[in-house]
């Protein structure tokens, strides 16, 4: 698709576009870059009811499409979310208050992500929600599927507690269909029901010997481990399957005593559905993988499993890419095993359906409208894996959120809207020239736990980002769709934007019309500042905003004897504590943070003086961290120009300084102290209004 055509599409950053719940990752990434961590978490929480959980186990489709990935490697969005969701500030966060009670009661069946998301959003809308869960613990597959070394239980519990804090009641050990029914719930005053019951049966291979003792079912095995049932394995284990679940099974097997774990799957290495990184981690831990075999039968020895016979698989998918395995029945291989765990997929347990008059689809799921999630029974909605088939936590959350909207409309007696925003289904490509001109910054990486330590427990495999690393990583974001927008009515086709853009994004037509591709633009701000008629608006750190911040900062610091406005480039290598330190060490310095000094216009500097600043300095980030180092010289010349302007109005030009930030921290103490000293030797600013 070409971006430049006028379109009714909503311009979503690729990361947002790819996210099933349309999380605006960009927003919290920016906040992290600005060291506003609490706000980052608030932003996440306003979109995602399970932030801590998702920070760890989301499959992060956002990263696959991240624009940065076209330049070097995608922004580590998932790790950033986890960073924001986990930090100590999480406890300081103020709870969002639900709307006043609507008086409606909703029952949510299943405490998986779909159910929890629906409960969360419904509660916020003022409805009274009860979650009914069959198992003794809440969380669905997040609790009993995903192993705790990937998602520590306390993390999940914390997320669930936050939802409970909204007034949601979670009742475990209640089986829909047995303990309660549509009828009984209606009788108890529930006006709507959401079914998010997931897929909790393991698919069968349907080959000889499958019911032998020693043959386990994948999700059952994981559930048993998760619920703390006594599961111990020894000696050799074969896991059948090549997906993420199979990997979880294999790695869990290692943690409950298995000596050798062998994964056997139909697919070739590169066709395996499991994520590459997961396979890699499993291998590191000692899981062996054998490709291109399909089970023919289980082998028995004196009533117990002794091994499994495989036929070789020649091809898994047909020309259309559909699953259609072909075997060579002549080539058989037998492998010994004490235990075989079958992890080839999940199915829904819909035993409750018939009783309640719900329709089961041919694929073995519940029937529901794909957009409104209404089932044929009035007031009953369904979503998540049980509708979509095996999917992901975020997709389940998306379903839960959508269900909440539908239910809300339903409860208010309004018809449920069916429209969905038209969004582009494909991410555009950056022009090669822009890729070339974009400065590369390596993705921040953190070492995982050593293997021995991982295997000896279920403790979490990946450590979190440090503050430093997180901000550095967040600053890699290329600010999709936050950049320049030309106001065509104002533009005079002077071509300044085209000439000044370090990436050469703007183009001009024969009639002088300027086009700035909002996807390609990286919001560096140069054009918006230099445009002589100020026809360019920019969303990231707009100029007017900077001037307002200056005014605000000065207005709120009138008690100080001398005022120094310091413009800081957020790309500097400093931490939150440095900001605090600055405030303590130099109370006279009023910091104004920006995504690059290139955004500071002479008028911003003049503004500061006009408002009464005694001095102004610009602190540029170290060149090795500057995404647009080529602008450095221009910034220096611009500052020099501002200095002559100051002198022209009768202010000492030495009141304006520009310096580079140190390699670490906010300011070089020497230069600040020197500036302060200089100011002290001068008269106070004649422009200060003394109250």
């Amino acid at each position, binding site marked *: 698709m070409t971006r430049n055509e006028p379109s009714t599409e909503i311009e979503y950053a690729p990361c947002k576009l790819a996210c099933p719940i349309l999380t605006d990752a960009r927003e919290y990434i920016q906040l992290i870059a600005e060291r506003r961590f609490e706000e980052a978490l608030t932003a996440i929480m306003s979109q995602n009811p399970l932030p801590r959980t998702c920070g760890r186990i989301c499959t992060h489709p956002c990263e696959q499409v991240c624009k940065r990935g076209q330049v070097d490697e995608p922004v580590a969005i998932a790790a950033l979310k986890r960073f924001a969701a986990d930090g100590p500030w999480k406890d300081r966060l103020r709870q969002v208050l639900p709307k006043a009670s609507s008086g409606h009661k909703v029952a949510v069946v299943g405490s998986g992500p779909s159910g929890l998301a629906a409960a969360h959003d419904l509660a916020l809308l003022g409805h009274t929600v009860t979650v009914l869960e069959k198992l003794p613990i809440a969380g669905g597959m997040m609790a009993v599927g995903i192993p705790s070394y990937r998602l520590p239980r306390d993390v999940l519990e914390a997320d669930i507690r936050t939802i409970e804090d909204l007034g949601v009641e979670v009742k475990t050990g209640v089986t829909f269909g047995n303990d309660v029914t549509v009828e009984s719930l209606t009788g108890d005053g529930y006006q709507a029901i959401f079914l998010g019951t997931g897929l909790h049966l393991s698919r069968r291979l349907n080959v000889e010997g499958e019911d032998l003792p020693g043959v386990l079912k994948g999700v059952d095995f994981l559930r048993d481990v998760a619920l703390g049932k006594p599961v111990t394995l020894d000696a050799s284990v074969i896991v059948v399957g090549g997906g993420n679940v199979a990997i979880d099974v294999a790695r869990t097997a290692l943690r409950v005593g298995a000596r050798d774990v062998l994964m056997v799957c139909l697919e070739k290495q590169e066709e395996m559905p499991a994520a590459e990184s997961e396979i890699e981690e499993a291998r590191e831990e000692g899981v062996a993988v054998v490709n291109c075999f399909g089970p023919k039968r289980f082998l028995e020895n004196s009533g117990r499993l002794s091994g499994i016979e495989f036929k070789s698989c020649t091809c898994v998918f047909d020309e259309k890419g559909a699953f259609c395995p072909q075997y060579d029945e002549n080539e058989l291989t037998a492998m010994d095993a004490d235990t075989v765990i079958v992890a080839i997929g999940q199915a829904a347990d819909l035993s409750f359906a018939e009783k309640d008059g719900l329709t089961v689809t041919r694929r073995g799921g519940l029937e529901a409208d794909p957009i409104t999630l209404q089932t044929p029974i009035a007031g009953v909605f369904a979503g998540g894996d049980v509708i979509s088939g095996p999917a992901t936590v975020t997709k389940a959350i998306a379903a839960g959120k959508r269900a909440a909207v539908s239910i809300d409309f339903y409860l208010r007696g309004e018809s449920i809207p069916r429209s969905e925003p038209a969004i582009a289904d494909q991410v555009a490509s950056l022009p090669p020239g822009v890729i070339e001109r974009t400065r590369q910054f390596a993705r921040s990486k953190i070492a995982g736990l050593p293997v021995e330590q991982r295997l000896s427990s279920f403790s979490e495999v990946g450590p979190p980002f440090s503050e430093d690393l997180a901000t550095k990583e967040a600053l890699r974001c290329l600010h999709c769709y936050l950049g320049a927008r030309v106001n065509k009515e*104002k533009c*005079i086709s*002077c*071509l*300044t934007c085209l*000439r*000044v853009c370090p990436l050469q994004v703007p183009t001009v037509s024969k009639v002088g019309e300027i086009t700035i591709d909002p996807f390609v633009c990286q919001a560096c701000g140069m054009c918006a500042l230099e*445009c*002589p*008629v*100020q026809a360019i608006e920019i969303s990231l750190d707009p100029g007017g905003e900077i001037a307002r911040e200056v005014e605000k900062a000065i207005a709120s610091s009138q008690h100080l004897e001398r005022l120094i406005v310091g413009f800081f480039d957020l790309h500097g290598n400093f931490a939150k504590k440095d900001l605090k330190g600055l405030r303590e060490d130099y109370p006279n310095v009023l910091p104004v943070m920006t995504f690059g000094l290139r955004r500071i*216009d*002479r*008028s911003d500097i*003049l*503004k500061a*003086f*006009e408002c009464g600043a005694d001095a102004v300095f610009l602190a540029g980030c170290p060149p090795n961290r500057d995404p647009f180092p080529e602008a450095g010289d221009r910034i220096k010349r611009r500052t020099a120009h501002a200095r002559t*302007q100051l002198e*022209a*109005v*009768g*202010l000492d030009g030495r009141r304006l300084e520009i310096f580079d930030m140190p390699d670490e921290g906010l300011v070089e103490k020497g230069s600040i102290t020197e500036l302060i000293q200089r100011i002290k030797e001068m008269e106070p600013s*004649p*422009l200060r209004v003394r109250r």
Partner: protein
Amino acid sequence: MITLEQKQFAQIKEMASHYDRLLVLGCQTCSAMSFAGGEREVKELASMIRMERKISGKPGDILEDAIARQCDPELVDLIGDKVRGCDAVLSLACGAGVQMLAERFPDKMILPGCNTTFLGVTEELGVWSERCAGCGDCILDKTAGLCPIARCSKQLLNGPCGGSVNGKCEISKDVDCVWQLIIDRLARLNRLEMLEEIFPVKDWSPAGHGGPRKMIIEDLKS
């Protein structure tokens, strides 16, 4: 385009000092393109004047505005109310704009904040150079498309003079000798013989030496 430069602040300050309520009025065409008086410079200059006044204890309000062009009456009239509400207008347009304001607002003092420099081209961002002198009788067909009137320091029509060295004009090593450029271009075009002709004396009357110029298109005018 017409290029302009903002006057030295000292000069602006001086001429504006007699008026308390001052409107700094930008022109969003040539002046903006010259970075002399577009919206951005209005903002900056207004801020400077305010500061200067505060420092020197002078009273007054500084208003800011910018219009698309100051050389057209209809556009100028659009800010009539604002102009009437102040003591003087500091126009950041070219001389034409300043005079249009003066014409439309006979009771108001209009001050020029810019110098009109020349008719030229943008060589690159921040660099402009003169190309045309508005002589009213274009001769570029005879000079290989390079204007000796605008670009030869002596406006020679039969150049180059004896001061041309290494392609540079005698007045400065930074100024190209346009006659060298003309010769080079004619050589490329294989038309060097054009130089053998004596270029006749030029009629300067259309260049403004025939009195103020006016242009009328009969079928357009009312």
